[in-house]
């Protein structure tokens, strides 16, 4: 992939191309391993691509570079989405994605920082990542490091009480160098009781129904930005805005409206694809939808 001297990608169109390839790799990797999540990785894919190719100051060949920005995927069940983007960014070979969920793999079903360099936390138990990011942001400030810490949560994940402990303490310590990104894909796995008389397992839509997330975060003293989580310009701009606020005393939350399963006609907005393995036919259909157009004239590699 073509990279600018600082490691970012040159053109906006490239981000879309990378994200398309990333989505296909998610579907293929999960199909290959026979287990994994689809909906969450696809809703987060555009943000992960924007972060790793445009926002984060990282060195994939030197993953423990002390002055790197930190990114924590608190919604750890979207791990395959993160692995795909890390592979495309050069942390490890794309071929290694075939080991996802295999025995002895560095690519665990939920991220394990002891196995894969470049992971800043072990996640998978929801609600925990923001606290680790808070500790990094606090320590970075005490060390005088100009690193920025981004933590991605799911909207369902904000049901965990621990998230709000971290929200309270981060504001209390005035950690402008901490940014929470909430992937608001609007679906959770089982859902809440349906109104009397309605059939079905539960209302999975809108995990935050009745909760005004923006108002809640603002009440705790956070800055809140709301964006379309599939608009690369908006993602990059919001992250730049958050970084610019690092010298201030308010952490920033970016509430990103997304579509679960985004990017594939048959997965978008469908709860069934929270954790489902694509059949051979579905993988073929995904390839038809996601494989890139013929090689562009300027010879950009993919």
């Amino acid at each position, binding site marked *: 992939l073509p990279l600018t001297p600082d490691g970012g990608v040159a053109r906006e169109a490239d981000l879309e191309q990378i994200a398309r390839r990333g989505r296909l790799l998610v579907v293929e990797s999960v199909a290959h391993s026979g287990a994994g999540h689809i909906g969450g990785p696809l809703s987060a894919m555009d943000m992960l691509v924007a972060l790793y190719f445009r926002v984060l100051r990282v060195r994939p060949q030197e993953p423990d570079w002390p002055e790197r920005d930190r990114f924590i995927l608190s919604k750890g069940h979207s791990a395959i989405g993160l692995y795909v983007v890390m592979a495309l960014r050069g942390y490890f070979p794309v071929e290694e994605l075939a080991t996802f969920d295999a025995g002895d793999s560095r690519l665990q079903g939920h991220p394990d920082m002891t196995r894969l360099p470049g992971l800043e936390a*072990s996640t998978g138990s929801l609600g*925990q990542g923001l606290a680790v990011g808070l500790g990094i942001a606090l320590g970075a400030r*005490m060390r005088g490091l100009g690193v920025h810490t981004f933590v991605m949560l799911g909207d369902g994940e904000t049901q965990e009480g621990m998230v709000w402990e971290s929200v309270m303490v981060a504001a209390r310590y005035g950690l402008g160098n901490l940014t929470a990104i909430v992937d608001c894909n609007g679906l959770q796995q089982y859902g809440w009781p349906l109104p009397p008389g309605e059939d079905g397992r539960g209302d999975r839509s809108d995990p935050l129904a009745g909760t005004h997330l923006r108002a809640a975060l603002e009440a705790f003293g956070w800055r809140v930005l709301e964006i379309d989580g599939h608009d690369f310009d908006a993602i990059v701009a919001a992250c730049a805005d958050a970084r610019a606020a690092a010298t201030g005393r308010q952490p920033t939350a970016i509430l990103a409206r997304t579509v679960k399963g985004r990017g594939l006609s048959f997965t978008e907005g469908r709860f069934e694809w929270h954790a489902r393995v694509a059949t051979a036919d579905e993988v073929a259909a995904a390839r038809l939808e996601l494989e890139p157009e013929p090689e562009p004239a300027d010879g950009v590699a993919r």
Partner: protein
Amino acid sequence: MRDAWAETLRDLAVENPDLLVLDGDLGTSTRADRFAAAHPDRFLQMGIAEQNMVGVAAGLATLGYVPWLSSFAVFFTHRAVDQVRMLVAQTHANVKIGAAYTGLLTGFTGKTHQDVEDLAIMRAMPGMTVIAPGDATECVAAVRWATATPGPVYLRLARDAGPDLFDDAYRFEPGRVIGLREGSDVLIVSTGLQSARCLAAAELLETLGISAGVLHVPTLKPVDAPAMAAAARGVRLVVTAEEHTILGGLGGLVAEILGEREPRRLVRIGIADTWGESAPNAFLLERHGLSPERVAERVARELAGVAAPVGGTDR
């Protein structure tokens, strides 16, 4: 013992700029306030939010800090156990858990605050070092060792001071089991402040003509299993005594080791799968068979082959 913990950290922090204390709003009880007074810039108040506190410590540790946590044991081993397990133990984070108010003797707090399951829980976690010092001297040495040694540590601190077991020559070695007294009839194995009470029990037994050895186990994990088996080799009865449930703590540890290496008749004294209550220390020790007199009685009875169904068994 809590004073020894806090004052040692205060002293170590003079030379170690990376040493931090994170407090869960209990700094006066845990004595972390002594650290705070000396090093206000390295005392991080985390509020009444222990789950977050554990996560913050894990994050700080990635930057080379050595965070010590200050709260009551139950809030680590029960309320924040998933955070300890996933963010500290699994990642082998250099986080030190200063678990205050352990066991039964927690100052009239009762069932909420008496942590009598912590050893069972913490020693089940891969990679966790579990220490229960027997006196202030051992506590100081353990704090110094833990601060200097990378990796997660659970330090079981007694609220109150106990009798001295060791002098200034004491050196902490993880895993070491320490014979406090030789004996040929029975071996009493203990940990934490209970070891001093078992030593007193052995002296009472001596007046009855019973020769009781006392083995102190300051680290439940790791532990020198061959040394423990060797200590049991010459006796016909082994008794464990702990301010902890008889399920899975020291009694469980000794049962596992002797069962594999040196089978012996084993009696476990401790909290017999029941809930605690707020009461004076002496009452609680009597109720659960942990006072020197009750330990001695129990040992004498078991040695005589009388199996009386009193406190300390799980039948």
